């Protein structure tokens, strides 16, 4: 523990700017993955343990599209849309058959898919890591603000993610689709009785969750090594985010992802050997004090 260093950092503008931006960046990718997990659970009642693999697929799809087109925008779109289509197939062919089944069955099916996708990634892209180049437009010196340093790509990544967070929140709270989805989450039978196609609704929600994971993978591809199995670590952190934020809450996922990002960014200075410990302590504390999460609603 080095609280002197942490105190010193918090009283220095350059350190606050750099670490705050680092926390934002770590949190943003985490939010994109966690928001998909929380959305799917909140509406479908299914914990998608394969969601980390969707993130991995998004990164690989983006890598392949970039190799073919050398366009970052096309690569990011390819990653997002490719995973969305895969998600729809996954939901229709597999997941829809185990709605209502116990958690163990859901876990087994999802874990099987994780293993299959990891092996497919090995066959298609190789067992060794691959690297998507940083687009030329982002290979520029970092922005300096208040003495702190923020990479240009990370500014773009943060802006895109915040826009997505606002968009998804609006979609879920301000549109007819969102209201219907929330109603279906409360009482699926009643929604169906009103003549709404709940199957299409479920497909739509799963496609949206998959799309978010695909976007995360596509945006992460230029800054991370791509390797089969890369989705596991982000999935674990996504579950921490989901528990802290509250199952089914997009706003909760956003706040919790930021909390985790800031814990890691400032923890690396103040308590570098206990950063993950603090993350889990935070989760345990929330579970004790407010088991439904920061923004979660108590079950009736």
């Amino acid at each position, binding site marked *: 523990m080095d609280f002197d*260093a942490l105190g010193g*950092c918090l009283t220095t503008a*350059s*350190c606050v700017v*750099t*670490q705050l931006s*680092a926390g934002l*960046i*770590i949190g943003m*990718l985490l939010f994109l993955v966690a928001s998909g997990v929380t959305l799917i659970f909140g509406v479908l009642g299914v914990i998608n343990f394969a969601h980390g693999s969707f993130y991995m697929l998004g990164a690989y799809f983006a890598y392949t599209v970039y190799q073919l087109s050398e366009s970052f925008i096309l690569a990011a779109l390819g990653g997002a849309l490719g995973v969305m289509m895969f998600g729809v197939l996954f939901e229709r062919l597999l997941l829809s058959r185990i709605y209502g089944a116990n958690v163990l069955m859901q876990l087994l099916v999802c874990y099987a898919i994780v293993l299959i996708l990891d092996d497919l990634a*090995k066959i298609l892209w*190789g*067992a*060794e*890591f*691959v*690297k998507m*180049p*940083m687009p030329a437009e*982002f*290979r520029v*010196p*970092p922005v300096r603000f208040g003495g702190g*340093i923020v*990479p*240009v*790509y*990370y500014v773009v990544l943060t802006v895109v993610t915040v826009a997505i967070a606002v968009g998804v929140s609006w979609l879920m709270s301000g549109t007819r689709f969102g209201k219907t989805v929330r109603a279906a989450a409360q009482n699926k039978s009643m929604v169906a009785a009103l003549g709404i196609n709940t199957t299409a609704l479920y497909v739509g929600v799963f496609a949206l969750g998959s799309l978010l994971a695909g976007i995360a993978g596509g945006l992460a591809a*230029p*800054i*991370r*090594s791509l*390797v*089969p*199995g*890369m989705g596991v*670590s*982000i999935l674990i952190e996504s579950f921490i985010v989901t528990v802290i934020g509250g199952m089914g809450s997009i706003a909760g996922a956003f706040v919790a992802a930021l909390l985790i990002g800031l814990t*890691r*960014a400032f*923890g*690396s*200075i103040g308590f*570098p*050997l206990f*950063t993950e410990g603090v993350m889990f302590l935070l989760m345990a504390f929330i579970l004790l004090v407010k088991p439904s999460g920061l923004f979660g609603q108590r079950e009736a």
Partner: protein
Amino acid sequence: MPRSQRFFVGRRDVLKSVGAAGALAVAGFPAIARGQSSGPIRIGMPTILSGRVAQLGISSRNAVLMEVDAFNAAGGLDGRKIEMVIRDSKGQPAEAARVTRELINTDQCEIILDAEASSGGFAVHEVIRESGHLCLHTNSETSALTADPKLHVPNAFRVARQGIHDSIAGGLYAAEIVKAKGLKRWMTASPDYAYGRDTTAEFVEYLKYFTPGVEVVGDTWPKLFQADYTENITKILQGRPQAFYSCLWGGDLVTFIEQGALYGLFDQVTTFAVNMADYTTLQQIKQLPKGIHSGNRYLKSFPALPSNAMWGEAYRTKHGAYPTNWAWQSATGMQFLIAAMRKTGSADGKKLAAALRGMTIESPFGAQGKITMRPEDQTIVDYAIGWGTTAPKEPYVEQMHVADWKRIYELEVAWKKSKGYA
């Protein structure tokens, strides 16, 4: 012939038959025994074939199979050919121990060529301590593996770089740069496991030994195979060092360099990355910063021997990529093993171990064209070590400073005494 005599088998006939059968058995059993010893020599190879550092296992396997193919094509050991049994540990120490037991017990391997990184190498070491099988560690560079007498196993040898050798050479090289540029404030960023901790401590020890005015103002320890280094990079930036040292490697180093470049880290801080100068690392980094100081890992241009350039090209022709540091180490492990087999005319582990102690072989990777298996701690010495600065194109490392092995030996003795190893 009376009817009774036609079917009568007398006691003498029985004795003759038993005698004949016995004679056949006496003549036959050695033949059966010969049949068993004329089967393939099975060598088990636990390594990492998947995950972020799969290039470790894949390049090790490629290099080993090149040596094995040449040995088998030349007739093997009196007709006995080597059969490699290669297993993926996925980079997990527990899995490395499990697959090694499987290689010994199920696959009946006679020898273990351990191509694990240090994390799994120590696990394999404990398995072969129990089993007594001959083992050559080809990718574990943690000094303690062979330097610490408590870990000594008579049947285990290291055919790989040793952290202390690289650290002494790196300390000597860094001292020159420190004096020239006045780099007093340092930080470190190395992987959080035995190799990272030990090698960094050793480098810092020699950096301070050669330039006493140097101050290490901070450190950061990313986890092995960590996906995001943002928190580590920003911590280095906050420490405002003039220089930093890292022994990150493989895909981890590639990701760290790419993410660090976004922050302009390498424009602000003089970087010493001991594991940078390896083709697969250099070629994967899309924004290779110029002027990073690195130890040689594998370069076909260093040591500047025709045999090294030829080996590098032969590997590239066969596998479509240049070799890695792990490739030359694993190839050398197999070269030592084959030399010992030819010397003893046997694949018996104990005979091979006796032959390996003190053995010197001609090698494309030797500082003077030769590498020796030092008998007292069963680790290789006299391999080529150098430090230089990275460049984005061939030969990738320029201004190579060749390490002086006499100096390494002197300081290694003192280091062993300070650690209580000697």
